[in-house]
């Protein structure tokens, strides 16, 4: 596939969304969306992250994180390595956003900072709990890097 923009914008902030070839098979070193996830599903993950200042699933750098509920107490697998959360890096106003499944644990290695940030930040899981996307035990498990 080639990069292309979704025809719809998000419900709350009318953000645009770009499907990227890099995360759909073009770069084997990059996180990959599952092939059985439709474009509509992928956009729904992004739409779940979008909200007003109080309830969007964002970290202090403005990155967004989304997920799709599956059944009573699970989240749908989004990536080829069973990732259940997706990350949407902060994008300049007016530009389309893009995203990819986010590793449950830090796979990237060294940072120059001793206290490097863990992503998603804990407040993202707190907000997911507040809106009912996850329950208390799911929150704790996701914060540890466990599956739900």
């Amino acid at each position, binding site marked *: 596939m080639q990069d292309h923009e979704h025809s719809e914008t998000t419900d709350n902030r009318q953000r645009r969304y770009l499907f990227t070839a890099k995360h759909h098979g073009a770069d084997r070193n990059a996180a990959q969306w599952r092939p059985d996830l439709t474009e509509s599903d992928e956009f729904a993950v992004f739409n779940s992250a979008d909200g007003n200042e109080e309830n969007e699933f964002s970290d202090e750098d403005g990155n967004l994180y989304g997920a799709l509920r599956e059944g*009573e*107490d*699970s989240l749908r697998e989004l990536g080829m*390595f*069973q990732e259940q959360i997706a990350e949407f890096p902060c994008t300049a106003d007016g530009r389309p956003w893009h995203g990819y499944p986010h*590793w*449950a*644990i*830090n*796979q990237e*290695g*060294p*940072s120059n900072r*001793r*206290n*490097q*940030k*863990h992503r998603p930040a*804990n407040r993202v899981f707190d907000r997911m709990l507040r809106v009912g996307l996850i*329950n*208390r*035990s*799911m929150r*704790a*498990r996701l*914060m*540890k*890097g*466990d*599956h*739900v």
Partner: protein
Amino acid sequence: MNPSPGQFAVEHLPFPNEFDVCWAGANPLSAGLCFGSTDGKVMFANQQGLPTRIGEGSASGAAINGVARAGVWIGVSTRQEVNFYSAEEKQSGFVPFGAHEIRAEGRYLIAPLGRNGIMVMDPPHQAKALIEPKMGLYAYRLATTRSQSGTVILACAARSGGIFTGTFIGPQTMTLKMATFPGFDAVDICPLDPGSDSRGFAALGKDGTLVLFRDVLANTTNSITMKFKSVQGVAYRMLCSYGDIHLLTSKGWYVLGELAGRFLRGELVKGVTTPVTVTPMEVVDANLVDYRWLLVVVPGAVVRIDLADVHRQVLAKIGDAEGQESPETNGGNWQRKDVETTTRELAGAAPSP
């Protein structure tokens, strides 16, 4: 088939609001318990669960998902990094890769690092990772067992990659046996008779599928794949003690009475049913302490259960007509390969005084 409601004695260990407990296990400093919090703190406690010391466990303040001791070194794992501390001197350091848990085997700390393979560290020396470069090993959960002759079997649950097993010899290239079947998402693995010479292991699928291996290093003809209909929810953990298998799912704690014991003794033949009990709880995580105590983390508390007492009750109910289940079984459409690992050094922060 409805499982019997569990009527086991459980003890609730409460926590103050400022300690949001997410992990529980054995105290690595002395006899007793140890707890980890979602903001990276570690609490050491006595056998009654009363705190004796609280300290920072994670360099980044990430949620604790494992604590283990190898020699004088305490390893603390999080999704952000693996931390290590000397129990004798004021020395510490960390390896900047996230882990799903941490265990000790002899003088080594070992941890599953996802796509980065299996970390093997002889602290404070450089950590190495055993990597399986071609098959896409995703190291998720680890278990080891040591025979009386000293041979250590390492087993790894590798999600859709199935399971990887081998004879552990430290941070050196090794041959791992990979086994999986289509649709199996391996989320946990444990020895069936820990502390013995048995090579029996059990692997757990996310959908509750159980695979029992009589000899995990041999071919799979000695394995059985089964699914108990009464086990509901997303499977999280599986632990084995006194011949009983304990499954922790999003719906609660299930006891599969004498399942491991009967399997290892060759008594799991057609027509034999397994007593299944369920105790509903909001499970976060679970671990064994001394193979006797089951610690189940639930939001805001830890539940402690005496598994010797549970096993006595299991034996008393083994012939009951109610709460028994004969699971669906099959041999599994197994795919097996021997794979060679490579090793690579993991850049890390040197120990600091």
